[in-house]
């Protein structure tokens, strides 16, 4: 404190100088419209840059939301394209009816956007947790997809979280898939190892397809609607028993950087599933 006072006593004229200059500058800006305007316009220039930086930071953080919306949109459009391609291939006489049916078909689905909160790809039994649960309308055995393709099936549902069994679960994941444009189907399983490769099994021997064909969901599984992208056929093998083909599929979904996904909620699928269960029950109860 004494040092400070000594300092002030020694250099008080500097302090006075600063005060007087500040007074002068204030007068300069206060009473001269030109200098004032220059000052304020340069101040605005600085302010503009600050606001610009601020806006870009805000934009960066809103990217998460934008990303989610895009994932949802992408998924929707992907399905639409698939459907249209199929319809075009069928070349029916009355295309407007088909389009109407198409729209009706798509409107049946409710997409619940969700975010992956935990994920793994390095174990044989991987599980994914997403941040949506019963409260958001997620139920057991609903399909989960992302913008790039299939992800998995919901398994355990709590109020706000859901555990998904992804394709990358060697023991539990069996998803019915078909080859796009060919119609032959098999089921998708993963053997562990490379998280970008899975196998489509039980494809009949008489099936005609070639490497590079796309694999998509078949719509038979009562979980996924038809046409959700799965991946691309990379190599064709014979199955162990020689009765079917075993196709190595390069998955279109990158499980290692999964973030935004959609839960596909389809009331009709649930109904079909219920019906199927009833049938199974009645068959098992039927006396031999």
């Amino acid at each position, binding site marked *: 404190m004494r040092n400070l006072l000594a300092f002030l006593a020694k250099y*008080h004229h500097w302090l006075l*100088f600063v005060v007087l*200059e500040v007074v002068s500058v204030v*007068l*300069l*800006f206060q009473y*001269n419209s*030109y*200098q004032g305007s220059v000052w304020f316009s340069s101040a605005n220039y600085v302010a503009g840059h600050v606001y610009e930086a601020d806006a870009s930071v805000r934009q960066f953080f809103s990217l998460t939301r934008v990303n989610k919306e895009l994932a949802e949109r992408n998924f929707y459009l992907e399905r639409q394209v698939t459907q249209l391609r199929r319809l075009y291939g069928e070349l029916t006489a009355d295309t407007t009816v088909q389009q109407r049916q198409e729209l009706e078909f798509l409107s049946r689905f409710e997409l619940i956007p969700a975010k992956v909160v935990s994920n793994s790809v390095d174990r044989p039994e991987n599980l994914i947790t997403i941040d949506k649960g019963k409260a958001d309308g997620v139920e057991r055995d609903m399909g989960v997809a992302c913008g790039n393709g299939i992800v998995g099936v919901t398994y355990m549902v709590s109020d706000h979280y859901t555990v998904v069994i992804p394709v990358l679960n060697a023991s539990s994941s069996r998803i019915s898939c078909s080859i796009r444009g060919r119609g032959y189907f098999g089921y998708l399983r993963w053997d562990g190892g490379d998280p970008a490769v899975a196998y489509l099994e039980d494809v009949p021997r008489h099936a005609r397809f070639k490497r590079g064909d796309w694999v998509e969901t078949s719509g038979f599984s009562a979980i996924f609607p038809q046409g959700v992208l799965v991946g691309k056929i990379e190599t064709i093998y014979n199955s162990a028993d020689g009765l079917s083909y075993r196709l190595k599929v390069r998955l279109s979904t990158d499980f290692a950087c999964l973030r935004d996904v959609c839960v596909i909620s389809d009331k009709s699928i649930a109904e079909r599933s219920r019906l199927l269960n009833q049938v199974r029950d009645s068959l098992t109860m039927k006396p031999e």
Partner: protein
Amino acid sequence: MAVETLRRLAVFLALMLAQVLVFNHIRLFGYAMPLLYVYFVITTRRGYPRWATLLWSFCLGLVIDIFSNTPGAAAASMTLVGLLQPYLLELFVSREAAANLKVSASSMGWIKFLTLAAMLTLVHCMAFFSLEMFTFVDWLTWTFCALGSALLTLILVLGLECVRKS
């Protein structure tokens, strides 16, 4: 002390009136404008309290500003000159010189006095015209104004000093 203050006040008023009534109306070649009031600060004696120098110069600048409608410009540049004067003065006088040495051509010698006066005048003119124009886009005009005014002021300081000596 009181006599000194009164004398300074008299010089203050004289320079102020001269500036306001005469020199403010001179714009030689459209650029050079004598700013003779800086003479007041130049001639502040050695050992004069620095805070007082600052206050005097600020007040003189402020008064000039009030009369010539340039609020702040002359006050700011005069305060700057008031701050620099004691430091520059020390460069030109020997240590053995009187602690209350008067700043004039007769006591310091013409060369030293004029160098000191030229430096302070130049600083003042440059600061003043920078603040008045507040842009360096038209730097040629700024250079003409600052250098021309400094030269003209210096000539007037020289004349004033001659009159004082005789």
